[in-house]
Each structure stands twice: as C-alpha cells, then as structure tokens.
C-alpha cells in the first residue's frame, strides 16, 4: 500500500531583488523542479544525489518544514500541503525527520531528558525517556547529559530517539550517517534497519553515497539539479544503471577487492547553478555518453520507463555506454 505519494513537487527560491528590493528579481533558484515518487508502507526509498541536487529540500518540503512552490504530497491519503495548522500538527506525529549534522540537531541548552520529554508533552503521550533511550541502544544514564557531552554517534541516536518519540510511520532520514565515522556509520545504519523491522517504519533515506544506500534501500531514486534522472528497485539500479549520471556515481563507489579493476567515469566540471540550469537535458554539459547529440542540448528528456519498474530520464538510456 502506498503511504507517501509525491507528485510533481516544485520548490523555487525567489531570486534576490537588487536596488533595495525595487529592481527586477534575479532568476529564481530551482532547488526542486518537478519531482514525483511513491513509497510503499514499510519500504525504504533511497534518494541519492550530489551536494546541491535538491535532495534535502525534497525531504524538508515533504514534511512542510518549508513551503512548497507547487505540487502535491499525499500522506496516507491526506494532502499535506493543503492542511491547516491544527491538522498539520496532528499529522506531524506520523512523519518525522532525522538530521545530517548531529551537532546542530540537538538544542545545546537542553539535556537529553528535556529533548526527549518535550515531544511526549506536546502530544500528551505516555512513553518514557528511558524506554526511548533503550530502543536506540543508549543507557538511561545518558538522560542527564547535555549534547556537548555526547559523541557524534550518541547524538545521532538521541536524534533518532526524538523522531521515534511520537511513534511515527514515516521518517525522512536526511543523510543520517554522512557526518559520522565509518565504524559508527554501520552501527547507526543497523539501528535504523532494526527499528524499521520492529516498528514497520517507512523511510525516505537521503544520501550522497550509493554504497550506504545499498544497505538499506528497497528502491533508489537519483537526483540531479532538482530533477529525478533515474528511479528503480535497488538491485536493478546497481546491476544495470541506465542514466549516464547514475553510471558515473556507481563507478565512484569504492571496490573492496583490490584485484578487480574497474573503469572510473570522471565527470568534468561541477554541478551547474540551479538558478541557471542548462537547456535541454540538465546533465548534458557533463555527460560522458558516446551518443550525446544536439537533441540533448535542446530537448529535455522525460523520466520514462525503460524496463518495467525502471525509469530513466535519458534519450539514450537503452544504448550501452
């Protein structure tokens, strides 16, 4: 059953006006430019892309922590963007977020106990702080600590406990492990996987690292410059990537076996400014595809099914690279 249904989500940041706000506005920044996907209940969608691709904005806009420019977000049939304040607050209990930076995601003036007690108070729940800490693998003694007395991994666990406190169905994990040490990354990923199994959670797992997503995601969506360029079941996308950008990302995943050599695709240049996206295919200036043609420069490729359940936005997705 579909729990989360995002349709044609758009988030533009208005351009700055010069001359003390009287001049013509600069071009808007198209952080998210028409993104659609669904997540089935109890499943995980991995949302992958490099810095500036708009993946964090997708996550925050879905929870209406930022107002969308247009589009729709259906959560269990509720139109999240159309809700008034009271009903939105009620729905917030069911959708939570875990942040990337464990250093800024906890209030430095509040003890762990204060932080975890607050959501229980807001929604009048009768859970206990000790139970929450236990669920994320922290000792009850941590309740008295302040965030600065915890390590990165411990803070991230507190952040996860806070999200769990309101018993949500859906959690946006916004790069929850990318700020942690590699050894701690694995622990936190395992914790998230265990919690998902135990509580039947649905995740949107945002990451810039395909290797991390591989462990946890059922489906993977790849974002580039505010648009989805590929969307497929995880196994499929790793075995047979269709979009040249996905192929380049996969070629950058480290290979544990030192004897296998693989071809690295190195993309020239940087991601373009989302205020001035290139015409046609947004990826064309950096695309290494041998078939790249004039068509790529003028005609934006739609996200279309290549094989059943596997979509890609490339005119030459069927061609080998």
């Amino acid at each position, binding site marked *: 059953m579909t729990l989360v249904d995002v349709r044609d989500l758009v988030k533009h940041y208005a351009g700055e006006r010069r001359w003390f706000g009287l001049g013509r506005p600069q071009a808007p920044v198209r952080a998210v430019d028409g993104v659609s996907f669904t997540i089935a209940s109890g499943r995980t969608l991995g949302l992958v892309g490099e810095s500036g691709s708009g993946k964090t904005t997708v996550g*925050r806009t879905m*929870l209406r*922590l930022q107002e969308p420019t247009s589009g729709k977000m259906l959560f269990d049939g509720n139109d999240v963007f159309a809700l008034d304040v009271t009903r939105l*607050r*009620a729905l*917030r*209990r069911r*959708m*939570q*977020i875990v*942040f*990337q*930076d464990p250093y*800024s*995601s*906890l*209030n*430095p*003036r*509040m*003890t762990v106990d204060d932080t975890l007690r*607050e*959501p229980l108070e*807001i*929604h009048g729940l009768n859970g206990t702080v000790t139970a929450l800490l236990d669920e994320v693998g922290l000792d009850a003694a941590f309740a008295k600590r*302040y965030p*600065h007395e915890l390590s990165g991994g411990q803070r991230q666990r507190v*952040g996860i406990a*806070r999200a769990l*406190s*309101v018993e949500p169905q859906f959690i946006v994990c916004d790069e929850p492990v990318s700020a942690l040490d590699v050894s701690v990354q694995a622990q936190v990923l395992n914790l998230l996987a265990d919690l998902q199994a135990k509580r039947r959670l649905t995740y949107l797992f945002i990451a810039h690292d395909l290797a991390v997503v591989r462990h946890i995601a059922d489906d993977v969506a790849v974002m580039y410059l505010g648009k989805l360029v590929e969307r497929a079941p995880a196994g499929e996308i790793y075995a047979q990537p269709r979009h040249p950008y996905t192929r380049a990302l996969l070629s950058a995943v480290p290979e544990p076996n030192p004897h296998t050599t693989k071809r690295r695709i190195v993309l020239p240049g940087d991601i373009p400014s989302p205020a001035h996206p290139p015409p046609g295919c947004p990826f064309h200036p950096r695309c290494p595809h041998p078939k790249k043609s004039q068509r790529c420069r003028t005609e934006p490729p739609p996200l279309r099914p290549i094989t059943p359940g596997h979509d890609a936005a490339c005119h030459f997705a069927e061609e080998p690279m």
Partner: protein
Amino acid sequence: MTLGTWLALFVALVVTAEIVRVLRHRAMRHERWRRFFRHRTTTWGLGILTFLVIVALAAPLVAPYDPDKQLDIVHLKNHPPSWTFLLGTDVLSRDVWSRTVYGARVSLGIGALGALVAVALGTLVGAVAGYYQRWIDAVLMRGVDVGLALPRIFILLMAVALWDGLPFAALIIVIGLTSWFGTSRLVRAEVLSLRQRDFVVAARALGAGSGRVIFRHVLPNAAAPIIVSAALGVGNVLLLEASLSFLGIGVKPPEPTWGNMIADNAPSIYTAPWSTLFPGLAISLVVLSLNAVADGVRDALDPRAEAA
C-alpha cells in the same frame, strides 16, 4: 559623619559579605550556579551590587544629613572631603555622601526597571521579527529604524511636554520605551540565524507551536547577547537619566539622583570636583559590577561553559 553612620556602614558591609558567602556556599550544590561563581570578578560584582542595594535601602541610617538640606550656604559651600563631610559638600552646601546614598535609591531603581522594560521589549520585538520574517519583520524593523533615527532626547522631550511633571513610573516607562531599539536588532539577527538550525527545525517537525519554539529553543540560545545588552543597558539608562536631569526634565530637583548630582555640579567641576566625581564613580561601579555579574549569568545559562 557620626559614629552611628560608621556603624551602619560597617553592618552593611558585614551583611553583604555574609549574603555573598551564603549564596556562594549554597551555589556549590548546583552545577549551574557553580558556573556562575566561577570567575572571581563575578563574585566581586555581585558583592558590590548587593552592598549598594543595602546602602540604598538603609539610606536613613547610612546618611548623616538630610540629603536636600542646605547646611550653610555661606560657609559650607563646596567644602572639600573631610571627616565631617566624607565626600565633601556641593555648590548648595548639601552633603555629597548623603545625596549619593539617597541618590542610589532613585538611580538604581530607574536603571534596573528602565533597562528591564527596554530589554524585555527589545527581545520580544526582535524575536517576533526574526522568527516570523516577511511583512511582520519589515514593519517592525522599519519602526526600529525610525526609532533609532529620531534623537532620543527629542522623543523624551515630547513625552515630557505631553505629560508635565513626569511621575517616577512614567519616567521609567518613557525611558524603557525609547531604549529597546538596539536590543531588538541584536536579538533579531540572532534569531534569524538560530531559526535555521536543525534543532529548531526538529522542534517544528515535532509539532511545537511558535511560542514554544521561540521561548524554549530560540531565545535560550540567544541569551548571551541579550544579557550583555541588559548589563550595558543599565549604564545607558543611568546616563540618560543624567542628561534628562541636565535638561531639567528628569527627576524633580531637590530629590537627588546620581545623574542630576553630576548635572547640577558640572559648573564647579574644576573648583569642587568631589561633588561630580563621586556620583560618577558610583555609576561606573554599577556598570562594571553589572558586566561582571552578566558574565557569570551567561556562563550559568550555558551548559557548554564547563570548568576548564
């Protein structure tokens, strides 16, 4: 100075030392207040302020003369400090020590209450503007621009012209209402940056209302600049009261304040510096002590300020 006043002063000093000692002792049990007493300057600041408040409250015991009485306008005018007149006499032959002691009542009262009104208002306006942004921010901040652009003395003169014979409470309100602009800008800037932080976003995601977000998550983290501006604000209010007195629209004349003592005796600053020097020193002492205490409060509120 009689034996009685010396005795009263001595008792005030002992009481102060005892209060500070007891406070310090009890503070050691709580981590938060232990941080408050970590700096020696904070303890001293607290001691000096306590002493001044006690002296102000016990003014009739500590002051040997009636502060408004002109003792002998012919022979005792501008008398230099001596054992009889500890801080000398002023141009109207009034005892400077007695006037300073009684002046502490008005000056400390106006300083504390005026700064309190100003900082509370500035914090509220700054927090609302910074948190809600958009047109609310634009309207409030343009108002602040106007407030900062108009000379404060001019606004106060208008208020006085409308009010005629400003009562003490009105003076505090008028001073408070014209002193919050700087604080509101400071707080707004802090709130603008804090509201982007993940823990504030998290609080909203958990369904916390704006009031809770502002008062529990944003403002506690903006405490440092607010406290510093409050401490500096008291000094500013004392000086503002002085300039109002100088213009003859502050506290009514015979009633002494540190501000109007300086203003009244400014002409004789070269011939009888004591009558301006001592109230001036009192103001400086209050501002310095407040800043020391403010440092302590800031540390007490910040759990990261661990004992190094």
